[in-house]
């Protein structure tokens, strides 16, 4: 199960609405716990696929390095990523699967329908490497912050 705060959940969905009709993307910083990944912070990233940003995303390695440093400085790890599917379901695609290499991490996908965030799903990349990796449906537990 993936845990994240209500504010982070809303923020990553809002990111997809802002970049519509293009895909948004970002990273999930947190900790890997026995029961699943626990997100403490989300980090927006730029989509370098300007050639076809409506149906592809890529985070520049240089930006990933900075995000990893940020996580380390906070005592956190990269535990997953998020992106949006403009006007397509919140299900992983063959491209998503082929390009997924962070085994043990969570991949959140939000459907943005006509500019509004619709369904948000998470998929856990299970396995030990490229040969046996697979996406598993992963429940999302949203934590409501106390004021």
């Amino acid at each position, binding site marked *: 199960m993936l845990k994240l705060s209500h504010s982070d959940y809303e923020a990553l969905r809002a990111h997809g609405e802002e970049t519509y009709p293009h895909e948004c993307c970002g990273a999930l910083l947190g900790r890997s716990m026995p029961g699943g990944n626990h997100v403490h912070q989300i980090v927006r990233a730029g989509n370098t696929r300007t050639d076809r940003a409506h149906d*592809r995303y890529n985070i520049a390695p240089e930006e990933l390095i900075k995000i990893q440093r940020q996580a380390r400085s906070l005592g956190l790890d990269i535990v997953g990523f998020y992106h949006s599917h403009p006007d397509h379901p919140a299900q992983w695609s063959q491209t998503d699967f082929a390009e997924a290499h962070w085994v043990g991490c969570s991949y959140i996908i939000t459907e943005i329908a006509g500019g509004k965030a619709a369904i948000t799903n998470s998929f856990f990349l299970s396995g030990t490497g490229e040969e046996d990796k697979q996406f598993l449906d992963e429940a999302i537990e949203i934590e409501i912050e106390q004021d």
Partner: protein
Amino acid sequence: MKIHIPTPLRAYTGGQPTVSVPGATVGEALEQLTGAYPDLRQNLYTADGKLRSFVNIYLNDDDIRYLPSKEATATGESDELTIIPSIAGGCCSLTPLPSH
């Protein structure tokens, strides 16, 4: 020098996020790393010894693929290597949903 290990590869370094290895060059440091943790090798390199296309290795802020001397680049004790798999993907335009 320090080598930072990304989350998915820590299963092969005993859970360690950072490994310190000796090495006068990038290549020597990576040899030391895969010598100490042999299971890492197949996750970093193809069967013919080439760095997997989705694996990026940075010497400080520079991708080693684009360094003039590549893996022969000299390193110092304070340099850091970071291994970072790529992150990409995208939606389903090649397999559109059937219309209703």
